[in-house]
């Protein structure tokens, strides 16, 4: 298990996504797309935590737990910010070429398991099978 504890700011996005990218290489993925998709989904989750969970609040902290397992990669993103209800998120109309509101869609498209447990702390669990 890899554990990363960072301030919930976009300045730490690159560090966090690089850790996840490196962890993907520990999994016996059969294609480069595996890591690309996991990193894409995780990056959106990181954005959401920083930009939405902590919006208007004092700077908080994000804990990222990454488990490169034999048959999957499992990631937990833990924040102490605001909760949200994933059921309220509407899929973007891709034909309309949206300029925002695509993050949750990317997460769900690229990951096999997406589970959000409202907190505090809020825990977003993501997993992608090989």
């Amino acid at each position, binding site marked *: 298990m890899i554990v990363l504890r960072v301030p919930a700011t*976009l*300045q730490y*996005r*690159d560090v966090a*996504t690089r850790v996840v990218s490196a962890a993907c290489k520990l999994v016996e993925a059969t294609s*480069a*797309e595996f890591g*690309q*998709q996991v*990193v*894409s989904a995780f*990056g*959106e989750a990181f*954005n959401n935590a*920083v*930009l939405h969970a902590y919006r208007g609040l004092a700077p908080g902290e994000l804990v990222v737990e990454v488990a490169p397992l034999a048959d999957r990669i499992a990631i937990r993103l833990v924040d102490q910010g605001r909760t949200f209800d994933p059921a309220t998120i509407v899929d973007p109309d*891709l034909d309309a*070429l*949206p*300029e*925002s509101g*695509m*993050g949750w*869609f*990317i997460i769900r*498209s*690229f990951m096999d398991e997406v589970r959000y447990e409202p907190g505090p702390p809020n825990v977003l669990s993501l997993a992608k099978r090989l």
Partner: protein
Amino acid sequence: MNFSLQRDGDALVLRIEGELDALSAPQIRPVIEEVLAGAPKRVTVDLSALRLVDSSGVGAIVSLFKRQRAAGGEFGITGLAGQPLAVFRVLRLDRALSTSA
């Protein structure tokens, strides 16, 4: 994120390098304004050196595409590969934007 602008007559190439994400996307917005201010006949976005993009970065590029087309101009993307290609594909933008004349 680094960028460069190259003009060739009434065509313009915007090359974006590195990461275009929620942190850096706001920096590309003034560049987009500069691109459009010149009313180029054709805008090409060269993403061959783009390592990583997120939905914020995609939104900025889609915004450029829409405004260029609304102004009657042509638009294209070159060099889409790796993680950026994966994101463009899942949003069905790889063909919608790249093949637009």
